[in-house]
């Protein structure tokens, strides 16, 4: 099979409008991947499946990656000559800019007929908030169905063209995406007998909140992330039936 670099060049020649980036893996396995243009993702996927030299007819695994917003500090060093004739001073100017985050779907492709693989392709969303749509590759590889549903559930990527895009693991009423880096799980740390590390921190915070009266330890304490305090959903308790003779 051709190398990923050769494949990248062939894709660039075949789809001149698409941006195809090579993502190098510096590890020993050197499993390099290709980041494809999301807009042309499905066309490229069809090409990968049907090209006689590739015949990547089997998608073994689809997974998601969350890239949160990243603060990057730029340091610009400028040399200022000393007016008194001394050695020039080096002034560092620091500026912080935020590299916007995004979500990524990673597909691992193999060829059953030609017995080669994997070819790893990645599709990237515009951001993590509103532009989270990627083309679904389920029409290309049937095995992507549940995997894309799982990514939709846990990361919140919307796969356009998926035949049945529903949550797979969590219930339909669930609003969060638990595999995102900024997910905050509900504050149910009332009883942590052997807590340590991060769990101990959460348990201490819970106890402090319980003492301060913010969270009643006997009450349901759904703590939605990024919600205003006080907008927590009240515990809806179904009436207890005492249906005993």
């Amino acid at each position, binding site marked *: 099979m051709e190398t990923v670099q050769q494949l990248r060049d062939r894709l660039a020649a075949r789809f001149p409008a698409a941006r195809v980036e090579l993502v190098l893996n510096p590890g020993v396995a050197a499993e390099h991947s290709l980041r494809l243009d999301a807009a042309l993702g499905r066309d490229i996927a069809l090409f990968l499946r049907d090209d006689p030299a590739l015949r990547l007819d089997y998608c073994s695994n689809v997974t998601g990656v969350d890239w949160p917003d990243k603060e990057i500090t730029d340091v610009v060093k400028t040399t200022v000559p000393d007016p008194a004739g001394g050695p020039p001073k080096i002034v560092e100017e620091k500026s912080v800019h935020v590299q916007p985050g995004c979500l990524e779907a990673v597909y691992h492709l193999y060829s059953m007929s030609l017995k080669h693989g994997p070819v790893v392709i990645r599709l990237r969303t515009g951001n993590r908030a509103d532009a989270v749509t990627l083309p679904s590759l389920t029409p290309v590889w049937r095995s992507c169905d549940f995997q894309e549903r799982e990514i939709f559930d846990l990361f919140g990527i919307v796969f356009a063209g998926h035949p049945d895009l529903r949550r797979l693991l969590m219930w339909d*009423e669930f609003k969060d995406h638990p595999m995102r880096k900024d997910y905050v799980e509900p504050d149910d740390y009332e009883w942590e007998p052997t807590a340590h590390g991060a769990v101990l921190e959460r348990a201490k915070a819970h106890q402090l909140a319980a003492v301060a009266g913010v969270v009643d330890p006997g009450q*349901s304490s759904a703590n*939605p992330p990024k919600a205003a305090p006080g907008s927590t959903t009240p515990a809806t308790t179904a009436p207890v039936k005492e249906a005993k003779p």
Partner: protein
Amino acid sequence: MSDAPQSTPASPRPAPAEGFPAAGNISDADREELRRHGILLTSLEELYNWGRSNSIWPLQFGLACCAIEMIAAATARFDIARFGAEIFRPSPRQADLMIVSGTVTKKMAPLVVRLWNQMPEPKYCIAMGACAISGGPFKQGYNVLKGIDRLIPVDIYIPGCPPRPEALLNGLIQLQKQIKGEKLTGPDAARHTRADLPSEYPIPAYGAHDLEPAKNPAVWTPPAPPSA
């Protein structure tokens, strides 16, 4: 036993009349002596509990790998039938015992509570394995209930990950002991004889971030935090 409190809200246990001790009031040695002479002394309570404790029908459902051990306990090598609990019922209406065998996910928890509500009294619950007790290795997961005792009352806890079939059998024997010691009347009467205790429990709803309510304060309240 004879010095039971006389003023009780429920029907009080009548004090045994002089000269006619109730069956529970004579010593085991005396009863054994009578039995040797062909006289069997018992009480209705004892007979009733003896019958129930030796015919506990579990509900046939499993949640995770603990269920495999539960199945192994039902096979010939361990043979749960020796304790009269081999008839796993596929219907909650016919079951006496719910063995919560495995990880209870938050998605599964309302269904477990519904099954529990559908079981007729008297009913018992065994939390089998670390997950059913506390969430186990998945305790800090976003989708795992931190113990089924937050939603329904649990009679026997069997630790282990998973517990071996012998541990399950030991838990069953402990449950039999508990049933044999149950009172039918009086202030310490068994749960199923008490009209003031619920036999059904609120089924939590699927909320936007968690189950609502995430726990039942009538069943479970967090222990007091260690005094810091």
